[in-house]
């Protein structure tokens, strides 16, 4: 299945895009924002298909001699079976260009290459689409190079950027894009995707859906064998955190660093646990770990509110330094010493 029909949730964003198609209005650039793994890129690709599906279209053949950008027609339901749709889906279409971070960031060379491609006329597309995913990973040089296209977009070309946090992008880029917010998916939507599209057992899907924070991407990572065991271990550790000695905590830090893919989730859990304790302090009942509520309430008595907030700040700082490429080992040791 292709097109917008395959995208679950995001009715608001898809509605806005469909309106763009219906009103024959194509902006110069779109910026899709929202947490990762909720279908931003998939939607961008579907939008590219919507404009380039060639099955039984109004304009002839590939439409090279078609009208200018102002009246390129799109359709909300691309067929998914014509050559153009297939090529877009397989990433083979010469006019649908996907740019993603190489290693940890998008570098200027990638943007320069894009500029070179965009300097040419489209190969066959009615509307050429350049998709820059995780645009917030662009370094400032690349961002400034991209500005050039945003300021003077070539004819028949649409730029779609996706980002988790628009605040990480250059403000000059954000101001030149039409922003569209993507929402985290609901638990039932995620469970549905997991069972239907990925063949995951309903029980497990429900567990994962409640934990993944609305992101299919995260949910799929959690489906890795051993992830649930890892989480149980992590929770057990958290339950007895206040009884751990410094040495043990440093050892745990080391263990967390050993699997960098789970580091982010580990930090999440460290933060969520303290958040739940704060909730307990103020007598609220909306827990992230409702099954451990007794332990949380018990543990919460041993901390003051300001202690907990200081811990949360410490975790937040760790994340910040990590993204600024601090030494992970030193940062983790530091965090473990502070999270008494």
């Amino acid at each position, binding site marked *: 299945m292709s097109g917008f029909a395959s995208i679950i949730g995001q009715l608001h964003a898809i509605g806005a895009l469909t309106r763009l198609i219906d009103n024959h209005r194509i902006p110069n650039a779109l910026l899709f924002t929202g947490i990762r793994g909720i279908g931003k890129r998939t939607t961008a690709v579907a939008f590219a298909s919507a404009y380039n599906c060639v099955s039984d279209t109004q304009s002839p053949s590939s439409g090279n001699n078609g009208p200018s950008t102002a009246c390129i027609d799109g359709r909300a339901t691309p067929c998914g079976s014509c050559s153009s749709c297939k090529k877009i889906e*397989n990433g083979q279409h010469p006019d649908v260009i996907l740019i993603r971070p190489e290693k940890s960031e998008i570098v200027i060379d990638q943007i*320069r290459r894009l500029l070179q491609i965009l300097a*040419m*006329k489209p190969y066959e597309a009615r509307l050429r689409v350049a998709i820059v995913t995780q645009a917030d990973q662009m370094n400032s040089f690349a961002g400034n190079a991209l500005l050039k296209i945003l300021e003077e977009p070539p*004819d028949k070309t649409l730029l779609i950027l996706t980002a988790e946090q628009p605040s990480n992008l250059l403000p000059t880029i954000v101001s030149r894009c039409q922003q569209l917010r993507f929402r985290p998916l609901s638990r039932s939507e995620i469970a549905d995707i997991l069972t239907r599209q990925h063949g995951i057992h309903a029980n497990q899907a429900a567990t994962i859906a409640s934990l993944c924070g609305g992101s299919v991407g995260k949910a799929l990572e959690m489906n890795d064998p051993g992830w649930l065991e890892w989480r149980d271990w992590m929770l057990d550790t958290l339950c007895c955190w206040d009884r751990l000695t410094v040495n043990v905590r440093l050892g745990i830090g080391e263990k967390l660093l050993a699997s960098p893919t789970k580091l982010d989730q580990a930090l999440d859990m460290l933060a969520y646990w303290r958040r739940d304790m704060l909730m307990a302090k103020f007598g609220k009942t909306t827990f992230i770990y409702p099954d451990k509520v007794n332990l949380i309430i018990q543990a919460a008595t041993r901390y003051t509110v300001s202690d907990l907030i200081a811990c949360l700040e410490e975790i937040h700082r760790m994340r910040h330094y990590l993204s600024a490429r601090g030494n992970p080992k030193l940062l983790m040791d530091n965090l473990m010493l502070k999270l008494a």
Partner: protein
Amino acid sequence: MKFTVKKQDVVDALSKIQGICSKKTSSVITTCVLIRVEKDRIYITANDFETGFEGYYPADVESEGVIAINARKLYEIVKDFPVDEILVTEVENFWIEIGRGNIQFNMVGMNPDDFTNLPCVENASFFTMDSSLLKKMIERTQIISAGDDKKPHTQGICLQRVTVDEKTVVRMLSTDGNRLSKAECVLSEKVNMDDISGILILKKGIGEMTRILIPGKPIDIAIENNNAFFRQENETTVIRLLEGAFPEYSDYITWPDARKIRVNTKACTAMLKRMSILSSDDYKAVVFTLFEDKMTIRSTNPELGESREEVQIDYQGDSLEVAFNPRYMIEALGLIEDEYTILHITSGQTPCLIEGETDKSYLNVIMPMRI
């Protein structure tokens, strides 16, 4: 699919497309050549989305079909094949068998459906010109390589076809921001089509096309949609056009007050070469001083020393001093076929025009350097 083809035909075609297929693109399929077998011929196609090539060659066809196969490896296999006729068979699952009996290669191909077809050429309206004339124009404009600033008009060569005095003139223009090259030729037959006011063709693609050009045969040219087509009998090259337009340049080539200085082309080239011996990246300018029937050229390099040379010319009036990059001058003079060259110099801040004494089909414009 099964066919037998003459080795030489395939080797020639494959050698022409190596440049196209070796380019790195986002898609692996561009390293492949598509071979389509129909009736009594095979079609060989390559496409890197910037430049494409298609040619057809006679073959002894047993069954029709289509395959995509790594162009480089196929070329290497076929090039040194010891027999003149090559048998190619598609086995199954994109496996391709080349040769049979004593020598046999089995290669895995790719799914031909992934191959992006070349833009359709059928409805294009072609005009014909002599390929040697075209080649000469390309040589004269391609001397200016793509500029660093990535502006479309420096990345491409501008092609125009205009009607002047009831004659069709084909013109090519190229610039890198510091100099401009203009080459023209008059077609022997008038073309009754709308003028081409100016399209930009990627310099890289043009370079690829000259490799494919067979001298002596006429070439058909068409501009259709977003592509330029160059067709010679059974072989067609397609180059994608660039966005944008060539800047208005007529102001840079009309200098009514210019002093015309007539120099011997070869002697002047030799002189400039001598002058550039002492030039380096930091000190590359050579200074021309015109004063009373004399042209003095000197180059100064504080790290190495200086050189000076004097020639007799026909010049009256105030003293005039202007500096140029000698490499640009040497390259421009190298493309002039006349014995004598005319330099049009107006002042130290305005461009210098270089053209042959009689041959006005080629003009080179060089911006002066600040002294």
